[in-house]
């Protein structure tokens, strides 16, 4: 069944995203300004925030893993490590799942479209903050553990 195209008068490029025309996530990124500048004449800082989120998301993951490696080699793994993993899950779960949701809009075309659009403009403001929190804690702990194990 072919669904009628939705009209977005405020954003002409979105007319390309009819539901019967499959578009790649890359094309969708270009149109909605997620990950790349939208190129539609509208001022949009969403892509900058999107890149920041992805960078912090990856860094947070790397430092949580580094923290674990430091703890396994330097001392025993404890409740603080379990807490930071839970914190990392709580931070990355909304960020990464929402990102994936947007990238694979075929999961739910209606919701994906709406969400994709809004995501690139406002929601990402919270994402870097969410991911940065476990990142700094994990960084501090990794450094502390390595310092203490060196001096011991």
């Amino acid at each position, binding site marked *: 069944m072919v669904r009628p195209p939705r009209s977005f008068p405020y954003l002409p490029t979105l007319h390309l995203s009819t539901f019967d025309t499959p578009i790649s996530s890359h094309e969708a990124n270009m149109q909605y300004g997620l990950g790349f500048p939208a190129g539609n004449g509208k001022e949009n800082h*969403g892509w900058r925030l999107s890149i920041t989120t992805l960078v912090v998301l990856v860094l947070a993951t790397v430092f949580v893993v580094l923290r674990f490696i430091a703890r396994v080699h330097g001392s025993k793994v404890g409740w603080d490590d379990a*807490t930071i993993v839970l914190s990392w899950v709580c*931070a990355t779960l909304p960020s990464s799942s929402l990102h994936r949701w947007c990238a694979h809009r075929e999961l739910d075309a209606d*919701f994906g479209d709406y*969400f994709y659009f809004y995501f690139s*403009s406002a929601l990402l403001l919270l994402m870097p903050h*969410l991911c940065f*929190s476990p990142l700094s*804690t994990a960084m501090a702990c990794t450094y*502390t553990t390595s310092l203490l194990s060196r001096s011991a």
Partner: protein
Amino acid sequence: MHVYDLTPEQVSVGLRCFYLCQIFYTIVVTLNKIAAILLYLRIFITQKFRISAFITMGIIAAWSIGATATTVWQCVPIAGSWDAAVRAKAKCIDQQKFWVAYAIINVFTDLMVLVLPIPPILALHLGKRDKALILSVFLLGGL
């Protein structure tokens, strides 16, 4: 791109996701503070320190439960947080005041966690340089 460029449906979905992130945000902030205190408890074993650490953890846990619950039920029914039609009939808190209060208490509890390891570090039998180095590492968590 501004909020007035969006359709009411888009705003509603965006706000729903924002609502979800607010809840996760309060949980993440709490877990990080508790993780830092649990780390201190593994390093510093004096009874005096343990008592102050547990008191700080209790304050943070109590405040966080309250803050998370307030975030979840910021509007009753909760759909008022993202649905303008429901919001008109819903009972909602003053979000601006709540987030200002949350930020102030957040800074206060951050300071509590930051100050917590300073006395035991200063009591260590180490040189000034080493003490300063360890203090700076612990204060890095304040980022």
